[in-house]
């Protein structure tokens, strides 16, 4: 199939920040992504949902360069990302938060953030350059925002699960990316923490473009963002939460095949 044929009509007024064109990924004959098309406008907050195995994480892997698509193209600000190394993609302005919190356990939260906030990333910059005062202020500010100031100088490995989640989000923000890819940010968080996370993400949208993958439907509803439903590696439907919720195909996919009860 020709990727061009399936691109949605160029209806949106602005050029998209991120565009996936007919992306397919095959693992030994199993198609984890199958002709996936998606556009994200600058400043947008978008939620992506889908049952297990729908290809959500693979989808992030393709954008961030961890996986190379078997077919199709990923464009960021009109530029193809296919074949670009992960760290370069990050430097172009795409940040990613992982499903399970991944912070550097043996460094303190402050040092975690200092690594993330650094504009320059070559070994020599780290050896000979010093962190400028704005960056240091930013680290301090972020520590305050996520409430880790008291723990700033202890090993991050000792933080609670929620604190690690927040630290990782803070690291993501410290990178100041144009596009934030957030994979299940509220897994394992308390209700209160979940609410605060939703607020934080909403704040970030506008200035940043945010794409959230989540299972927690309450959280998605809180976000009040357009929703894209993935199923078997391609987009099943898009729309607001209310629209998606009543879409018979979505109900079929969730209740018919998976029946996990998480779609409330």
């Amino acid at each position, binding site marked *: 199939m020709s990727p061009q044929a399936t691109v949605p009509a160029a209806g949106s007024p602005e050029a998209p920040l991120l565009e996936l064109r007919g992306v397919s990924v095959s693992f030994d004959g199993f198609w984890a992504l199958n002709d996936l098309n998606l556009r994200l406008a600058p400043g947008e907050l978008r939620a992506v949902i889908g049952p297990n195995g729908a290809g959500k994480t693979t989808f992030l892997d393709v954008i961030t360069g961890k996986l190379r698509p078997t077919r199709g193209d990923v464009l960021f600000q009109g530029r193809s990302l296919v074949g670009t190394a992960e760290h370069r993609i990050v430097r172009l302005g795409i940040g990613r938060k992982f499903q399970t919190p991944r912070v*550097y356990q043996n*460094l303190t939260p402050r040092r975690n953030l200092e690594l993330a906030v650094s504009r320059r990333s070559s070994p020599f910059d780290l050896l000979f350059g010093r962190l400028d005062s704005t960056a240091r202020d930013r680290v301090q500010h972020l520590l305050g925002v996520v409430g880790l100031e008291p723990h700033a100088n202890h090993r991050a490995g000792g933080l609670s699960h929620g604190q690690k989640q927040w630290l990782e989000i803070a690291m993501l923000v410290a990178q100041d990316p144009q596009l934030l890819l957030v994979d299940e940010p509220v897994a394992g968080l308390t209700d209160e923490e979940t609410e605060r996370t939703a607020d934080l993400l909403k704040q970030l949208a506008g200035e940043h473009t945010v794409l959230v993958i989540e299972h927690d439907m309450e959280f998605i509803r809180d976000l009040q963002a357009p929703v894209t439903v993935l199923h078997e590696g391609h987009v099943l439907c898009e729309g607001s939460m209310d629209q998606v919720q009543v879409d018979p195909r979505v109900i079929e996919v969730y209740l018919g095949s998976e029946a996990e009860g998480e779609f409330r």
Partner: protein
Amino acid sequence: MADLFSSRTLRRALPWVVIVLLALLLPAVLPPFRLNLLGRFLSLGIVALGVDLIWGFTGMLSLGQGIFFSLGGYALGMYLSLNSLEPGQLPEFFSLYGVQSLPAFWRPFGSPLFTLFALWVIPALVAGVLGYLVFRNRIKGVYFSILTQAALLVFFNFFNGQQKLINGTNGLKTDTARIFGELVGSDGMQRNLFLLTVVLAVGAFLLCRWLTSGRFGDALIAIRDDEPRMRFTGYNPTAYKTLVFAVAGALAGVSGALYTVQSGIVSPQFMAVPFSIEMVIWVAVGGRGTLIGAVLGAVLINYAKSLVSEALPETWLFIQGGLFLLVVTALPDGLVGWWRSGGPGRIQAMVGWPPVAATYPELDLDPAVQAEKAELEGGAR
């Protein structure tokens, strides 16, 4: 001025005072043979620092440090072989294999300045290139270890088989060469070399501490703990790993050169598989990720080896094998790690002595204070 003598300053200065004193005192009190041994073990401490840098801090277990160690040794060995010749002469062994003219790659080693750089730049370059190729392909963990071991074997067999180029199995000898007109193997020169080793070991230690203490060190630890995450923070781990592997290579080169002049010979034996694995065990026993542990481990284990093999050569393999097992299963952070995490205190606690407490709790443990407390509590009740 007053704080010049405060305990903090004193504590900081004390190790340096001890090092300087030892460096001056030991040559005077130790017999030449023991001094020479110590010098050699200390130079092995430098290669161990490199191993600690790449394994302890960056998580790459190289089983091929012998390559860089030997390259450094050979660079210096070649210079010394050429340096003690009359003009126009060839090192003796060439004539035995019918080689008429000096191979081209030997020529630059006639220059002392070139050699001085070559003995660490060449190992660093080789390490850098090898490392870059491997790291670029994201080969890591045990695959990296196995590949470095394979590379070691390649170098070993090559050096071993090339009689005509570098004298094969025999290697190059240095004891009968001369520097500044003095015999390298003479006691006086060996004493100077010992002092040089102390200076360079301290220098190497400081270099490693500088590398690991700042944000660069944070990046290394981050790579060790979660390399993919590091990429998604916008760093290219390949560059870091290559650089740090090259630094370890350079340290190995310096170490090999020092070891060579103090042993009197450099031979492919330095590239034997067990030797490179031993380097790792020095670091493991001393405590990886602690720097000082690497040096301590190298000196202690080699000293033990020397002692045991003087008395009972056959038990050494048992002891060494046992050390591997003990360290890996019971002391994962090595001696220094155990010490720092309060190991001695735990042992004390086990036998019922009060743990040493440096601050307020000590007050609480004071019997008089406790009695007073009990009295007060009793009174309140």
